[in-house]
């Protein structure tokens, strides 16, 4: 199959085949990062703009490295330093970037749906690097890529996602992606962190981490943000760690080969203990490495998809 989309906005709208195409493309790009000269000319002459409305080092750097390894030119715009602060609308900012003849905008935004809105108004490609609580497709893709690499398959795997599901774009994208590829997803959290109707996205709900760990092939631990002001019902940090924190003791009762992931940055001792983060089951740093390959694949494919759309017009 060939990729025909100019944008990557989320995993909800992708087919199983499209997701597999990204993963396969990423596999072929992974080797580039282990070469002595870590560069291929796939996007030579293309311009990628990282437009970040939320502070993010990890995702932005990952996209930047990915674009550079494809020989693209990269420009970084952070909302604190741009005309956004002067009140420019997102659409105007996007149109200005388009007028600079950039080819791809990689956007992180604190509002859900911002990437969709931008993509609708522009002819150039938009890659969603996380929008509000909605989706973070490349994070889920690199999680799935890592799982597949470690366990040899995705279909039939049992994956538990633990943490603040309600406010997590990583959880949503993972649920869409994993279920489309035939994995079984359990989301585990205190009641108030499980959003209404999440089971309709295909996830199983659990409030008992020990039970949710028991048969899991993989565990994805989300970052907890206790600074979130969600009122009195939000769990306290110590209470959360006691009931849901991932510790060595807890993990010992799970499968010996369970794969432990975390999208980073880790709050050590809050959602997982250090001995788990650094332990033998952890693939957290491999996720970071794989993130480059997955983002190379995404940038490469959307550029191709836009060219095709251009020809079709």
């Amino acid at each position, binding site marked *: 199959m060939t990729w025909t989309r100019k944008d990557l906005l989320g995993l909800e709208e992708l087919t199983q085949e499209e997701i597999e195409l990204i993963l396969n493309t990423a596999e072929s790009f992974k080797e580039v990062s282990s070469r002595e000269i870590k560069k291929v000319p796939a996007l030579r002459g293309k311009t990628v703009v990282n437009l970040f409305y939320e502070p993010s080092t990890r995702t932005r750097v990952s996209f930047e490295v990915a674009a550079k390894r494809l020989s693209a030119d990269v420009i970084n715009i952070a909302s604190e330093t741009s005309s956004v602060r002067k009140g420019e609308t997102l659409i105007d900012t996007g149109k200005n970037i388009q007028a600079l003849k950039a080819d791809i905008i990689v956007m992180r*935004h604190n*509002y*859900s*749906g911002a990437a969709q*809105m931008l993509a609708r108004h522009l002819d150039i490609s938009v890659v969603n690097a996380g929008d*509000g609580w909605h989706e973070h497709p490349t994070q889920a893709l690199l999680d799935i890529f890592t799982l597949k690499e470690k366990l040899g398959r995705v279909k039939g795997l049992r994956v538990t996602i633990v943490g603040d599901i309600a406010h997590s774009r990583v959880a949503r994208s993972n649920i869409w992606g994993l279920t489309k590829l035939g994995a079984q997803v359990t989301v585990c959290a205190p009641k108030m962190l499980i*959003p*209404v109707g999440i089971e*309709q*996205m295909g996830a199983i709900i659990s409030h008992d981490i020990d039970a949710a760990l028991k048969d899991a092939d993989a565990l994805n631990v989300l970052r907890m943000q206790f600074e979130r002001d969600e009122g009195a019902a939000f769990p306290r940090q110590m209470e959360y760690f006691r009931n849901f924190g991932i510790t060595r003791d807890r993990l010992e009762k799970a499968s010996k080969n369970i794969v432990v992931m975390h999208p980073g940055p880790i709050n050590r001792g809050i959602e997982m203990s250090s001995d788990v983060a650094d332990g033998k089951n952890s693939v957290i740093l491999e996720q970071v490495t794989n993130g480059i390959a997955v983002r190379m694949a995404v940038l490469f494919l959307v550029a191709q998809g836009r060219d095709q759309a251009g020809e079709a017009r």
Partner: protein
Amino acid sequence: MKILIKNGRVVDPANKIDEVLDILIDNELISKISKDIKIQGAKEINATGKIVMPGLIDMHVHLREPGREDKENIFSGTKAALKGGITSVLAMPNTSPAIDSIENVKLLSNVIKKTAQANVFIAGAITRERAGKEITPVAKMKNIGIVAITDDGASVDDDNILLKAFKEAKAAGIPVICHSEDKKLSNGGVINLGFVSTKLGLRGISRESEYKRIERDIELACKAAAKVHIAHVSCKESVEIIRKAKKKKIKVTAETAPHYFSLTDEAVVGYDTNMKINPPLRSSEDKEAIKAGLKDGTIDVIASDHAPHTENEKDIEFDRAEFGVIGLETELAVAITELIENKILDWGGLVEKLAVNPAKILDLDRGCLSLGQPADIIIISPQEEWVVKKEELTSKSKNSAFLGRKLKGLVDTTILAGKIVYQRKQ
């Protein structure tokens, strides 16, 4: 001038009329209704195959003047109303300044006198600046023309203040219109709380935030033995609460808006900010409950909650966009498309919701075609299909939830006090 409307199906439920008749208008008033009226020198309108009904009364309209004339003003809003077959509107007081004092009622009355193209009735605020703290001079404002009080857009949180307001409204003989929303429960939400809000990653507004507040509003009204009208009912529990209150003979009336019986939160998928409305579009279960409430009379009124906003306020991130949609020009057609076509209401029932009941609730001498009445009359083509297009809207703002939708029923002629004030181009 005399106008003779020939051979139209006259639907006038206030007088229990639904048959093909002629109507003669003489000197601004309805002078005769019968079969085969023959008269010299009258302007004749052939209404064969058409429906003739009282001009509609929309009791929930934001005309934005004074203060936000870039969104809408009295002139443009009433022009849009006439196109939609609406000859009378109730202007909501959440303007800038709010209609919360004698001076501001006078200010607004003056603008209405100068520029209104339709009848504009005024709702005063319940509290100063709609802040929920200090009650406005209700009786004095009533004396210079307000017909209801409401803090629409906000709910009076303090029970004692609302109770006092109910008592004053009762003494003044006017209803209190409640925007029933507990903002602590709606919690900064932007769409209905449910699967769609979860999927889109948007903060949800629970149904509780509406129906719990309706329960309280009815309870306090009951205590004061005052008339309460619940604005924009959107969910099933609310319908049930109002139904029960009516069974207990409590003086409660209620309205819903066309979007609540035609759309659900599924319409928000894609983050269309024209679907961002407060209260939010709910689930299909709620939509069906609203229809059932209209059918059994629990919901008395259909009102547009016409809420114009500029493109700058809508063409932005969903969370930042303003709440609200325009509705004057689509209200009747959406009602016909959803309610007449699906046999939820008959024509008489529809006119009750759109004219008779609003007139009763606001105590207006309108909404019927009785002899001697001011001739506010509309003539419509009930079968005519049309598509809602941005460029064809009269309202200053274009934030319709029905853009691109095919609807049934078009207004051909709007007559206000015996004058043809709108005529569709054919």
